[in-house]
């Protein structure tokens, strides 16, 4: 099966290739605007996925287990970037993205019985305010493509450094209902915060418009010689492995498709 993630990454790469292979009409144009661009965006970490983590615990002479299932995303993304052209239409850029939020996990535990081996009792609960945070540093190689006098399309890609934290349900505190002990309640869920740093990649396109000064009501201000607006679509990915209390979990899926928009300042 073709990896969906791979397909998502492939689309912008095809676009970049297309633009490089078919220079035609764009080759005759100069890059409009500025060599240095600084951007600030807000948008969405799109998509959501269910994640289940399993932790084991020792109780009543046996191993019990707790499964925490939570939905990751969508979140709000804050993004800041800076880039410069270094040769003709080629440039480099740095960006920082922050995405995160809180969610609720459903908790299902298999709790050992005090009287019998292999006769676990099932208990359910929920754990609230589970937090996930991603801080992603992107280093990009960029190709700027002018689209008219005020608009620039930038295709970018490169390595990303992920600094993430993820809350996982790691255990429970039980409350026995008493004899015959065939039922048990979860009094509280224990949550553990895992922090992970990993390398990944990103690809994306940025469409910037610096023609605000052409709008009559804004034309009087020198600010609009530099200020523009833009939208950025960036796909990033990293899949580090994690352990919860010594038990290896499914890979942590970091990054996603970020769709953001905001201001561009050119110099």
């Amino acid at each position, binding site marked *: 099966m073709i990896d969906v993630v791979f397909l998502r990454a492939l689309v912008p790469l095809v676009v970049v290739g297309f633009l490089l292979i078919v220079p035609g009409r764009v080759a005759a144009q100069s890059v409009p605007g500025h060599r240095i661009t600084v951007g600030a965006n807000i948008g969405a970490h799109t998509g959501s996925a269910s994640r289940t983590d399993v932790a084991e615990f020792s109780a009543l002479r046996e191993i019990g287990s707790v499964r925490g299932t939570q939905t990751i995303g969508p979140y709000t993304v804050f993004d800041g970037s800076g880039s410069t052209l270094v040769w003709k239409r080629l440039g480099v850029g740095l960006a920082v993205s922050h995405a995160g939020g809180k969610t609720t996990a459903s908790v299902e535990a298999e709790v050992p019985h005090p*009287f019998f*081996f292999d006769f676990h009792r099932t208990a359910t609960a929920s754990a609230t305010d589970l937090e996930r945070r991603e801080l992603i540093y992107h280093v990009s190689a960029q190709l700027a493509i002018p689209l008219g006098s005020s608009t620039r399309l930038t295709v970018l890609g490169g390595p990303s450094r992920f600094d993430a934290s993820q809350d996982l349900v790691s255990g429970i505190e039980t409350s026995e209902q008493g004899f015959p002990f065939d039922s048990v309640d979860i009094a509280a869920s224990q949550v553990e915060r895992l922090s992970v740093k990993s390398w990944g990649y990103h690809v994306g396109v940025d469409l910037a418009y610096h023609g605000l000064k052409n709008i009559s009501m804004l034309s009087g201000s020198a600010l609009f010689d530099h200020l523009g607006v833009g939208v950025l679509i960036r796909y990033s990915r990293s899949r580090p492995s994690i352990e919860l209390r010594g038990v290896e979990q499914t890979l942590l899926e970091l990054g996603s498709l970020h769709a953001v928009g905001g201001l561009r300042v050119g110099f």
Partner: protein
Amino acid sequence: MLSNRSLRRTLFATGVALLTAQAAAQQQGTLGPLVITATQSGDLGSAGRVVGGMLQDGTLRIVETTDDQLAPGRIHQRLAQFHRGVRVSGGSVCVQSDSGISRSLFGHVYPDISIAVEPTLSARDVVAIAGSDDMAVLSPPDLVIVRDDDEDAYRLVYRIHTFGMSGLVVSEIDALTGAVVSTRSALTTQGVQATCPDCAVGEGLGVKGDRKKVSVRLSGDEFHADDGLRPARVSTYDMRGDWERALDALNGRVALTSADLARDSDNVWQDGASVDAHTGSGWTLDYLYDRFGRKGLDDRNGPVVAMVHPVHRSDLFSVPTEVADLFHLNAFFCGLCGQDGIIVLGEGLPPGQTIGQTGQVLDFFAAGLDIVAHELGHAVTDFSSQLIYEGESGALNEAFSDLIGVGTEFFMAETGRHRPERADYVIGEDVLKPGGIRSLSNPLSRGDPDHYSLRFLGSSDNGGVHTNSTIATHAYYLAVEGGINQTSRIEVAGLGPQNRDLVERIFYRAFVFLLPENATFSMARAATLQSARDLSDDETVTQTIAAAWTAVGVE
């Protein structure tokens, strides 16, 4: 709870005619019990009038009232017969009612007692007669009236319980002459608190090597076989082979203390007999609660006491023969021992020793979950029907215990609570190997009767209480599994293993609530049929149980 007066109203309201049997007995001028077997299918009216009359004149008194956990709304009352204030042994009636209407009456009453009740001997005189250095008196003697069938008369006797190397003995001593009227063994034998700070769960291997959890308490730096998690406290005492102390503990000369409790330092228990006795006791309580809603042996979560290693296996040939019989070759429940009764699980035989010519080996009795549950079943009987441990009522007493033993095994195995447990219809197959002690499915294979016509009529074994029990338990087996009775060749279409729990409830309810202390097989049949009607609207259930009793020759 129904009062004396309201029960009388209930009984009188049920009918107008006198009981036919009573009339017949009076016409013939004979002494003897008036047998009351009255169910919804007949005789309720006349029996109700007789019992109501005796209740009104004080001959019968309500001694216990119990709510029915299996048939909500039903109330069971146990009436005891008195003559001029003295208890009449065997005179009792069990009344089941529903919203003030009688549903069934089972019992025996003695309507023609006329003897004086002033004893010549004092209780102290009787203690001197019955007690000795070897036989300790367990409780003050009770003055009772018994029927002497040989003399066709009633006697005023003292009933006194003693314990010694011969086990628990109940003697009846004539209150006028001091003559010992009868002596018999009274051993019923087999050849949460959610928070508990010091409770702990340990583990250990049973005699068969199966891994089990053990509910214990931490005391100091040791773990004691003292279950604080179950509402009924289960304590297992390890006598460490000190048979003299075991005897003294049973006959009340010394009290069991925490120093006698089975113990372990790291909570990984090594002694299989202690593990099996302790877990088996707890599991039986679990079964009683889950299946019948019964709270412990006494239905009041009273304590359960088990004793293991009352003798060293290796001392088989050095201890007195009576001690070997009692502590090597036996498991028993002594209801009057200790404060709340004690089950004693014998040691079995040393390796290399076999039972007589059979070549069978005898393991620790604690190894048999059905044995442990069987003995605790006797405690349930003691706290409920008090089936007299003699003759047919004694056989029913044994039968009930076997049903509890088998039921507990199936409960543990089939619900997945203890998967290694192998459930079957053989009693003691894990102790007396190969073969076990009794078979409910094929009693003849162990030399026990599968039909009433084959019942043992001798006097040994208290009138064949063990061997004759299989008549009733085989009926139970046929009701569940179906099959052909080998003697009558009557085939019964059983209700199937999927309905085993229903049949268990039917029999339990009949034995615990409906049967009086001197019940007969015939009465057991009627009581189980009544119980079946009470618990199931499906006529097939009642018909199947009736067919099973018919197949074993009980009508």
